[in-house]
């Protein structure tokens, strides 16, 4: 999982340093706001703990052993902000001092393991453990699941970074300059080991330590990702209730490029130009029970089809060459517009106070 130097191009490394920087900044600000002057010793000890726990050999079912990163455990006990900084600190010491993970790839490793790992672990744990008492077995299962999903999410992001290298960076002879494997090799190769061994090691460590803390020192589970959201107001309750839906929306957004796998055009969604295209006409006839389409587009369809030109036709923005990126961007754009529209309607129908100022909260 720790990417060594030489596997990612300098520009990828720089981009991932830049991508990690805002997360570090926000995490440090959040931690300073909650810990105040305690932030330095806390971070130092958390970082040291993360470093040491990464050295543990976790015995796995089947007799083999594996190393865990401890990122989900840090998130469950300390919270995502502290986990991001503690694991990043541990990775920095590993890279500089122990040659484990590259110096140039430190930003990438921090992004993948500390940031993606912590945030995914946080989301999974909060959803899976929502509402359960700190001592319930569900907490332990949620923690193990968070560890398993988090490490696999981090591995997937790492694999994508690897897989993009041969697409962009080759020498004049065509030899890849950095990681040579395309996405079709990098993703299955990375995921196989993480779905079967590394993920299980993370699950065993996280669930095991949470089970131990439930019996010995349950107070440690009350902070971090286990902190209960105060249920003081209806708005807060609503925000908690909506969180799984937000998560589902995020997952669906990420999955939208799967739509590209569907071949052909949906029945009845033909464009005027399809009526002049023999291939499209054959598809229309096949989809219509053998009924041949008219030889020319219907007049009304021809006229109305030019009334409005979509800014993102066929979910493929003209400025993007990648089809899946265009699909994803279109999904994000569309979702954003829907949310804006709903927020606008909610603002219009919201009851107003006597002095004309808006009262209550918007539920979206």
């Amino acid at each position, binding site marked *: 999982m720790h990417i060594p130097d030489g596997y990612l191009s300098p520009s990828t490394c720089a981009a991932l340093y830049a991508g990690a920087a805002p997360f570090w900044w926000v995490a440090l600000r959040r931690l300073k706001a909650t810990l105040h002057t305690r932030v330095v010793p806390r971070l130092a000890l958390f970082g040291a703990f993360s470093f040491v726990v990464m*050295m543990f050999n976790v*015995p796995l079912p089947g007799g083999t052993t594996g190393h865990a990163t401890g990122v989900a455990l840090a998130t469950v006990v300390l919270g995502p902000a502290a986990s991001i900084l503690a694991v990043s600190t541990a990775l920095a010491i590993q890279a500089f001092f122990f040659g484990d993970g590259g110096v140039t790839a430190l930003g990438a490793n921090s992004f993948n393991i500390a940031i993606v790992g912590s945030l995914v672990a946080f989301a999974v744990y909060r959803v899976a453990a929502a509402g359960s008492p700190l001592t319930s077995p569900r907490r332990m299962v949620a923690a193990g699941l968070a560890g398993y999903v988090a490490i696999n999410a981090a591995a997937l992001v790492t694999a994508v970074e690897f897989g993009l290298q041969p697409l962009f960076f080759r020498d004049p002879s065509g030899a*890849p300059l950095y990681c040579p494997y395309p996405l079709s090799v990098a993703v299955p190769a990375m995921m196989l080991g993480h779905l079967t061994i590394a993920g299980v090691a993370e699950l065993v460590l996280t669930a095991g330590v949470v089970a131990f803390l439930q019996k010995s020192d349950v107070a440690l589970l009350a902070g971090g990702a286990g902190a209960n959201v105060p249920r003081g107001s209806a708005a807060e309750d609503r925000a908690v209730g909506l969180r799984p839906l937000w998560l589902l929306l995020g997952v669906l957004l990420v999955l939208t490029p799967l739509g590209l796998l569907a071949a052909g055009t949906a029945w009845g969604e033909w464009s005027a130009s399809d009526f002049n295209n023999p291939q499209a006409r054959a598809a229309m006839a096949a989809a219509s029970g053998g009924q041949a389409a008219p030889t020319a587009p219907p007049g009304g369809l021809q006229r109305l089809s030019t009334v409005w030109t979509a800014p993102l036709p066929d979910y493929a923005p003209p400025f993007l060459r990648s089809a899946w990126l265009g699909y994803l961007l279109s999904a994000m754009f569309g979702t954003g517009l829907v949310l804006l529209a709903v927020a606008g309607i909610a603002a219009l129908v919201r009851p107003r106070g006597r002095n004309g100022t808006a009262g209550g909260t918007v539920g979206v």
Partner: protein
Amino acid sequence: MTTTARMRRGFLERTLDGLLDAMERASAADRHAASAGWLQHLDPRVKLAGFGGLVAAVALAHRLDVLATLLAGGVILALASRLPVAALASGIGIATLVFSAALALPALVLTPGRAVATVPGLGLGVTAQGLTTAGYLVLRTATTTCLAWLLVFSTRWSHVLKALRAFRLPVVLVVVLGMTYRYVLLLLDGAHDLFVARRSRTVGTLDGPTRRRLLAQGAGVLLARSLHLSGEVFLAMQARGYRGEVFVLDDFAMRRADWLALVSFAAAAGAAIWIGR
């Protein structure tokens, strides 16, 4: 290895070995950084900037001969500074074997290109592009590991951190890194004691669930100890007047030899980037 020997070297032993290795490496690095040698006498800021420049050159180089020259230069620097070349070779070898072999070897046959040989028995074709790619991976990993090793084994960790201040790294991060390293050693020692104590009380072979429970207990105890220790450290810092502000002393002074070394590092990195582009 016999079944008995395999059983004897279970997860406890392997974890203990790992912890001991880390402690020994830290101790060896401190010892060599304090010894006499050309690199050891240089200003830490010069070494940090110089090795940083060389690492950038390694990342940017598109020629195998440039990478090989930089690696050879690193070995010469180790020899000139009386650093243990055997330990350096072992460090590079482990990094290369662990990280590169798994990825570089399949690249020999999986990278499309002009076939130059065939793997006996398997009938797979080794391509010229595959050889070049594997060379890039192995040489880049080996050279960067060598340069990082030279920095750490020729400079005290506290000096490395202090030198980071010269590059405008926020002081709070410098202090956190310094304290983390100190407590890494303390926790490594604690974890080692914990597992030795457990092993000395273990008779016979443990089954899988018991081993996993044991490890979880160890990690849990270590976590609780870390949190407890952070509270104590904070109180100790407060007792010494800590109010949230941290300061580090910047008492490095550049000498003529340091300037000369800085120019040499810059020239080497610049030449490597220019020739290897």
